[in-house]
């Protein structure tokens, strides 16, 4: 087999091709697309924008990858984001000094605690009571926004707090803080899953829960843990989102983000059937989705056709990854070579 053929069979080959094609097309249209400039000591440009905008989806998709690896799914992430924003901003708004770092830190801790409780609840339903993950997490998906509304009193809570604003709009060492936060958690999860045995145990539970339990793996604890982690990452994503608009919008915060996150995980090559997962794949998946949204504007695609265009790209990437299509493509390549046929006696 040639090196090229081996390369095209790599799980991430087509998603990366899609990413490169999108970037190239955008650059052809607008020549300065890939340019990065320094303004006021910060890095500016479309690539930086892609990285910054990817951070929210990446955080949610990180947790989702782990959940999906255990054969589960978490639909509640969008609602958790809304709750995180509602809890934190309400507390900041009601404090006497919204601009103090201590106020912000305390409010964020409260938000984390609430989301932790939600994660524990989700995990309990799935791991202990054995409820189908899609149903179990549907509870918070539907009820969560209502809870957020109750917390904000049905209003869109807005605040003015410099430290909180830094989360989404600030820069550190010339890079957006949001991207640094997402990058830090990505590295942390990658490190913990691949340097300890957590990754392989998660995969083992996802592939065969019964066999894993009999082998002595704490299957229940592991499943519970991934739902808690997923809620915590969604919570941080909720901080970034609400910091971006400096408001807690219970109806729209993280709306449909569960679908983007699941899509990113699938594009990254992690199977919804559980088992082997790839964090790098998820990262590529998130970048493809964000670049897609950004290049749509650059390419001048009419607003009405945006969803259609997005769907097309996703379908093409998924098709190229499908084992059936790959098998067909390979068979065609093989057929091209003539095979001598003997006449049966």
């Amino acid at each position, binding site marked *: 087999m040639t090196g090229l053929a081996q390369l095209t069979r790599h799980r991430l080959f087509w998603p990366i091709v899609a990413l490169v094609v999108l970037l190239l097309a955008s650059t052809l249209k607008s020549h300065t697309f890939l340019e990065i400039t320094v303004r006021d000591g910060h890095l500016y440009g479309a690539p930086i924008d892609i990285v910054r905008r990817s951070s929210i989806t990446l955080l949610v998709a990180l947790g989702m990858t782990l959940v999906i690896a255990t054969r589960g799914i978490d639909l509640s992430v969008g609602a958790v984001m809304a709750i995180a924003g509602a809890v934190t901003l309400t507390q900041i708004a009601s404090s006497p000094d919204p601009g103090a770092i201590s106020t912000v830190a305390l409010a964020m801790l409260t938000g984390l605690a609430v989301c932790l409780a939600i994660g524990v609840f989700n995990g309990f339903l799935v791991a202990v009571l054995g409820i189908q993950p899609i149903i179990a997490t549907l509870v918070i998906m539907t009820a969560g926004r209502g809870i957020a509304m109750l917390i904000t009193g049905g209003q869109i809570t807005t605040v003015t707090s410099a430290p909180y604003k830094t989360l989404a709009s600030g820069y550190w060492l010339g890079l957006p803080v949001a991207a640094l936060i997402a990058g830090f958690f990505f590295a942390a999860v990658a490190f913990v899953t691949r*340097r*300890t*045995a*957590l990754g*392989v*145990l998660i*995969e*083992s539970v996802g*592939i*065969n829960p*019964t*066999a*894993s*339990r*009999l*082998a*002595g*793996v*704490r299957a229940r604890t*592991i499943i519970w843990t991934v739902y808690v982690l997923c809620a915590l990452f969604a919570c941080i994503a909720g901080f970034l989102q609400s910091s971006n608009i400096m408001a807690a919008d219970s109806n729209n915060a993280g709306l449909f983000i569960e679908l983007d996150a699941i899509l990113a995980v699938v594009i990254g090559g992690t199977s919804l059937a559980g*088992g*082997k997962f790839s964090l790098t794949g998820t990262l590529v998946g998130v970048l493809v989705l964000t670049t897609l949204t950004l290049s749509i504007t650059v390419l001048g695609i009419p607003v009405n056709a945006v969803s259609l265009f997005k769907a097309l790209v996703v379908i093409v990437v998924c098709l190229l990854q499908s084992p059936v299509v790959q*098998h067909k493509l390979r*068979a065609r390549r093989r057929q091209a070579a003539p095979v001598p*046929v*003997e006449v*049966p006696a």
Partner: protein
Amino acid sequence: MTVPTPSPIVQMSGISIAFPGVKALDGVDFRLFPGEVHALMGENGAGKSTLIKALTGVYGIDSGRIVVGGVEQVFSGPAAAQAAGVSTVYQEVNLTDNLSVAENVMLGHEVRRFGLVDWRATRKAARTYLEALNLDIDPRSSLSSHSLAVQQLVAISRAMVVDAQVLILDEPTSSLDSDEVARLFDVIRTLRERGVAILFVSHFLDQVYAISDRITVLRNGALVGEYRPAELPRVELVGKMIGRALEVLTELEGSTERVVVDRSGTPLLQAIGVGRRGSIEPFDLDVYPGEIVGLAGLLGSGRTELARLLYGADHADTGETIVGGVSTKLRNPRAGLSRSIAFSSESRKTEGIIGDLTVRENIVLGLQAERGWLRRVPKKKADEVVSHYIEALGVRPANPDAIAGNLSGGNQQKVLLARWLATAPKLLILDEPTRGIDVGAKAEIQKLVADLAAQGMSVVFISAELDEVLRLSHRIAVLRDRRKVAELVNSDDVTTDVVVDLIASGGTSA
């Protein structure tokens, strides 16, 4: 015995198939004539299943040709193979439990009238097919209400509905008793007379010699040869399958000098009145260091249930378990594992092997679970353990990075044994470790168990084959109807008949 017509219905030549890390078939030729029963023989991992899957379109072939009925075929899937007249009945019956017998037989071939299913005619057609196989059961009854043997026969009738010219029976007798086997063989003979070509796979040599007209032997993915049963004595067949001097085999089989186990100290494990409602009645059982306790009984007599309680796979609701002199509650598998108990389940596919993980990851899993996720087994230690057991147990292929799901049944069993041995257990519970495994691997595993016990490990050994239980055990517990009915010390006077009598009579303690 029928005389085969000169032209084969199936001609496979130069078939090669490779999986990542495994060369499953290497240029194998195989032919099948109409009206013959052709046995495909070989050790686990020899490539029998792979060859069958190539013929039934489950796997695509990397090279070679498949000619069915004179036409060269490239099967795109099982449906294409079925359309060409190749039908398969697998070891685990591929039917739909909750449908009726008629629905199962006629699935996809229901009699239609005005575009709707005519159920009356469908049932009638189903009955005709069933009767052709001398199977007198109500087509309306639910499939799950019948025994596994009848389900096998229903699966065969189903194969007849699609007008199969080639019928593949992959281990059809592994879960049948001798009467049921006789019945199945009657059906096979009927089909043979009708000119159906039958490919038969079984680990039971007696059955192979009783029914086959021709034998093809595979070894390590390559063809050894095609023989007539009359010209191939059994020892030679086994020698060809194993590919090793026969003395080694007899030595493995013969090493059974009986050792007296010292039962004066503290038992390693002591179960007093341990039971679980709906699963097994309370029982007493002592296992001493270095002792092999065999569990004998029919399928469903509670052998597995008892073993699961000893490990903590299920938790007992009555009684007391004392491990090493300390009373313990075995609430979950981890509890068993942490007290140096290991349990290898009888269903290696669903409760044993983690299919998509590598051989290395599968072997290290038990060790890793014991240490918890945070303390990863150091790479150096993992490498040592893995290469040690691959070598010691003869896992083939000897590639730690091969995907475990691609290995043959016998080799998966060895991987599981390695997983448990790596945890250095004091008590090893083996539930049917030799089921569906060929003679060579079976003898190897038996020898291994005897050696482990000689080194002081305690073993609870479960097998449906009484011979095996008698050959290995120092002590035998007999079970019947989810109750332990007897326990006896093994000696030369204890024969299969003695144990069978105990099972039949539900006897008193000896």
